[in-house]
């Protein structure tokens, strides 16, 4: 069945993008009024990094989830496979956004976001000289940063293209050859992803708080990414189902994706808490800075974000009926997705701008613009392939899925 974007959805994405642009404009004007645009570059680039990364991560999470289904030879997901693939379709766009953002930041010598890119911090005798940053410069320097970034993004892109190509080929050819090839490729991808999801989180996010380090940080980012992906997946599936597509998707599929949402939000909360609790317990100054800064300046946002991302899914999605209820799932999904955006906001903006950061017109505007763009890309991706796979070896199992 071919998907067609409704007029309403089309207008909605355009409306969200225009409101986003409008808000961004107001935000830029206000920023000029406040302190003559002193923080403008840093704030705009910080917002670009937040939104590039947040939505790129959803596409990447979908690619990971798809690879996970291939590698574990799962059956139930065959009916929703094309929706996962449409989400992974944001990946190339997300890669471009990441590259553009990182390129501008690099050309501006870090733009006060990655201060280790600024030679003033690593040149001995300079006014800003920082021995800790210089000590890390063997790893954190521009050329090596870009080598790593290109390797991550290139690997993701190559695997994405392979999965996409084979998925379309399977519709035509059938048989199990492609299935077993996907199985192998997915296993290889997961090995790369396991390493890269951690190290890319250090490079792109953790290096903003350049003095600070946490070995758990990569998994924490990964869990947040996975949770956001599952939320988008469940919301999108419910939307398509409501529009009358997806005849093969029954309550059990929705229940399964709901369970994934529930489980991954727990995984995220568990990792957030593990990182926070260990640092709180040990109370070592060089480790506590990260949380101290955020608690002192963003107490309500920081703990509120955690409580919402943890307790909303826990309380509302605990029962079996709630995981099958479209209204509850969508409500929890929208709130928690916003919560995870705030999580990324606090990682990046609190790290780069410190006490000067606040959520104003610019933050909301750029987020709305990116959201509208993201939804638009996903909907366009959905039109490019039939919504139901043919010849998937487990399609029959998926149609009769019942839990």
């Amino acid at each position, binding site marked *: 069945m071919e998907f067609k974007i409704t007029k309403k959805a089309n207008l909605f994405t355009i409306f969200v993008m225009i409101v986003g642009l409008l808000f961004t404009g107001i935000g830029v004007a206000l920023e000029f009024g406040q302190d003559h645009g002193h923080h403008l570059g840093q704030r705009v680039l910080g917002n670009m990094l937040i939104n590039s990364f947040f939505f790129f991560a959803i596409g990447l999470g979908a690619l990971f989830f798809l690879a996970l289904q291939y590698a574990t030879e799962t059956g139930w997901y065959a009916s929703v496979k094309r929706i996962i693939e449409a989400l992974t379709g944001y990946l190339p766009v997300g890669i471009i956004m990441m590259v553009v953002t990182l390129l501008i930041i690099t050309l501006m010598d870090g733009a006060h976001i990655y201060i280790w890119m600024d030679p003033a911090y690593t040149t001995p005798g300079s006014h800003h000289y920082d021995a800790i940053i210089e000590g890390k410069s063997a790893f954190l320097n521009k050329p090596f940063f870009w080598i790593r970034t290109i390797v991550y993004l290139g690997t993701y892109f190559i695997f994405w293209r392979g999965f996409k190509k084979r998925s379309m080929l399977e519709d035509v050819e059938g048989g199990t050859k492609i299935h077993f090839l996907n199985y192998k490729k997915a296993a290889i991808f997961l090995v790369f992803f396991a390493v890269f999801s951690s190290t890319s989180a250090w490079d792109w996010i953790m290096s903003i708080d350049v003095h600070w380090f946490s070995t758990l940080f990569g998994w924490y980012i990964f869990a947040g990414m996975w949770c956001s992906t599952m939320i988008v997946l469940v919301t999108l599936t419910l939307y398509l189902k409501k529009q009358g597509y997806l005849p093969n998707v029954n309550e059990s599929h929705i229940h399964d994706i709901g369970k994934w949402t529930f489980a991954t939000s727990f995984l995220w909360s568990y990792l957030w808490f593990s990182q926070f609790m260990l640092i709180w317990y040990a*109370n070592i100054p060089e480790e506590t800075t990260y949380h101290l800064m955020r608690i002192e300046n963003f107490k309500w946002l920081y703990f509120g974000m955690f409580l919402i991302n943890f307790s909303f899914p826990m309380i509302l999605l605990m029962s079996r009926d709630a995981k099958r209820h479209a209204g509850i799932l969508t409500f929890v999904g929208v709130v928690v997705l916003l919560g995870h955006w705030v999580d990324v906001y606090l990682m990046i903006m609190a790290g780069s701008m410190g006490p000067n950061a606040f959520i104003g017109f610019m933050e909301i505007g750029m987020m709305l613009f990116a959201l509208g763009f993201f939804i638009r890309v996903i909907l366009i991706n959905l039109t490019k392939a039939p919504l139901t796979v043919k010849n998937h070896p487990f399609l029959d199992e998926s149609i009769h899925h*019942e839990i």
Partner: protein
Amino acid sequence: MAEQIIYAMYDDDDVLKDGAKKLVAKGIKVAEVFSPFPIHGIDPIIGIKNTRLGIMAFLYGITGTIIATLGMRYFMISDWPMNIGGKPNFSYLDNILAFIPVTFEFTVLCAAHGMAITYLLRNKTLPGMIASNPDPRTTDDKFVMEFRMSENSNFSSEELLDLIKTTGVSEIDQKSVK
């Protein structure tokens, strides 16, 4: 009056499931199914409601959370204030992070044990309880459906037996209990 019970034995779970579907469609009430393993999708056919074990698990979990919190509040703060990493030791709330892992573990412990015991009790399969299945072969490779005459008063026992015989049954046994 003595209760008449009919046991219909099958060699295959799919045959039993199809048979159950057919009999229930004719208005016959199946009292129970005995099987060596869970038969997928049999519950809605013979009219078994969704399990309430999840609700019990939640209640057991909450009990664990409360007991753990009250216990640690007493042991670590009131009775003998413990020095936790040099942090304020007369406040539970300020040290709550240190107590969360234990609270979590105790919640899981209570929920898991409560669920396991409830399950065994509800199924009457706690160690030492007398087995209630009609034939020991239902723990190996046979499947048995149980019908009670009192629940199928619209049918005579001959009618019921004739209907059951059309469903590919391998053995039929009748019993009367007081």
